[in-house]
């Protein structure tokens, strides 16, 4: 069973204490939303989990293996994959080549058709099969987001962190991303979704983690979190507040 144990993570950038004793656990194929205002530390937490940033203190164990001091490539191979807030496709490589990178990094053979067939299946699922030989730079922003998701399918990690997967995405592509998330979760992957789009978060997630300026202020079901006065005060606001603006629907970056 997938097991992620995050224990008392701290991260400071100069005098800015971005993560303060953050602890939580994931057991099994949970669907988790990670929310919080801009500057809450969501992306920093993602960067610490994937090894791009080393914590000042605290530990992270993935399936019993300590990963907080490992380089990102080893963490990826251990079973944690992530997308980026700003899409980071390999722009001067074809769509297929983008998908080959994680598969070959896992040690799969580049000769033969196994990887290609897997990549084509992924593209078909993402409705991008016709774009297979185009350079990634020729894709629209939404398609590049899908390509990032496709790369994660090729990496096949146990835990997938999606950083703002719905930001700036057309409703039709949103359906594809919803389907992607549900399918990946149904296949036994734990999902952590970072988003300001609360409708999507509430529709998909069974558990929410709320960060507020480095503190994990809530960890519970969407219903519990919605009613949590600390969360309402710090992030969600009152029902009246939310009805006016559709809180966070713009693709704000934290």
């Amino acid at each position, binding site marked *: 069973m997938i097991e992620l144990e995050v224990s008392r993570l701290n991260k400071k950038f100069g005098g800015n204490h971005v993560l303060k004793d953050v602890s939580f656990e994931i057991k099994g194929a949970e669907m988790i939303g990670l929310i919080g205002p801009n500057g809450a530390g969501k992306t920093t937490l993602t960067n610490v989990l994937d090894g791009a940033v080393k914590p000042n203190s605290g530990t992270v164990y993935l399936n019993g293996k300590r990963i907080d001091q490992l380089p990102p490539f080893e963490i990826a191979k251990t079973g944690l994959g992530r997308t980026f807030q700003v899409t980071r496709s390999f722009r001067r490589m074809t769509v297929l080549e983008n998908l080959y990178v994680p598969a070959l*990094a896992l040690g799969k053979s580049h000769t033969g058709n196994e990887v290609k067939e897997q990549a084509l299946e992924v593209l078909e699922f993402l409705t991008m099969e016709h774009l297979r030989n185009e350079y990634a730079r020729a894709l629209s922003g939404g398609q590049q987001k899908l390509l990032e998701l496709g790369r994660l399918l090729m990496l096949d990690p146990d835990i997938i962190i999606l950083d703002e997967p719905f930001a700036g995405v057309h409703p039709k592509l949103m359906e594809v991303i919803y389907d992607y998330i549900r*399918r990946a979760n149904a296949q036994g992957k734990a999902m952590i979704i970072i988003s300001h789009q609360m409708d999507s978060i509430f529709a998909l997630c069974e558990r929410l983690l709320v960060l507020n300026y480095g503190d994990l202020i809530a960890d519970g079901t969407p219903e519990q979190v919605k009613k949590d006065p600390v969360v309402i005060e710090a992030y969600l606001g009152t029902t009246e507040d939310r009805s006016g603006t559709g809180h966070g629907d713009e693709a704000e970056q934290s």
Partner: protein
Amino acid sequence: MGIALLAFFFAFPFVYSAGNYDYIMHICIVGFFYAILASSWSMLAGYAGQFSFGHMAFMGLGAYTAALFCHYFFISPEPTGICTEFALGSNYLIIKNPIGVTSTTLTQDCLAQAMEKWDGAVTVSPMPVWLGVILGTLVGGIFGLLIGLLVLPLRAAYLALFTLGFSEILRATISAEIQITRGQAGIELPGLFENGITIAGHYFGKTDKIPPYFVMFFLLLGCLAILYWLSRSRFGLFVRALREDQDAAAALGVNTTRYKILVFVITSMMAASAGAVQAHYVTIITPNNLMILQMSLVVAMAVIAGVENFVAAAIGAILIEFTLEMLRTSFNIGGIEIDMTLWRLVFFGVVLMLTLRFARNGLLVPVINYFSRGHVAAETVVRRKQSESSEGASTAPGVQGGSS
């Protein structure tokens, strides 16, 4: 196309017979030398995105290693008693003492003194040229490894400045260490085939151009074969991913540290091997060969042809070397003599600027892409139409079937 080019260069030395044969052959050899440098730099900068300006320094390391090896190391059946020497089976490895650029009888080196004492009774053998070339290549690789490790955290302009600094430090050190390197005077080396060579019953003399032509040509082919293999392997895929986005590549499981160092080591070894062979061909190496102007020439050759394709860079280097040599011919316009020995570099600079402004992929890469990727756009349109028609027939909106 490739086969035609190969056939052309194989046949050229045997079918070309004009009066300037040696000159044209020399241009070809130098063209091959620059082709190795430009194509290996293309792998480093164009594929892996590591814009190093230290490539000529690695060339110089290979050349100077080969030169110092030939200059200071000898095999003798008798010990000199005055040089540093080690028993090597029944012979002795003699290491000559450095005496700088002076050569008077008072300061002559220990081996020269011993030879004088022996008065021709003992024959001292120089080290094999090929051993020096191999050593030069290995030293290039070792320094490539060290520089690769040092530049790991550096990107873009910082990497370029660091490698530029390394190159200049190396050149300054070689210039300053007159005692060992003979400074600006340079070190003379034996020719590639100092005593001539017989191939298929035909004897080629020391100054014959055909043997060095084929040595450099085969070295170029060897480098291109390795680069081709690398570019088609996971190495090629990973270094391109590294170029595009180092963090994203690492997050997808690519050991970016390993591939960044590997690409430095491999391309440095190629530059060093070319430098060692070239030094033996021209029989001298001086610090001026490491000047930034020389590095700029390699960069310009790769950029004008297309830095993201090592074959284009190699072909471009040969074409540009020829063009630059052909442009040496001065001419008169209305009684005014145009001295092309100077103006040719201006012409070269203008071509570089125009290429950077209007054809950032270089002049040859678009041609190669036309043949290799010209069908992609039409293919995408056809596939999209097929996809739309099947989507229209399907009842499920948005996502088609298939599994991940």
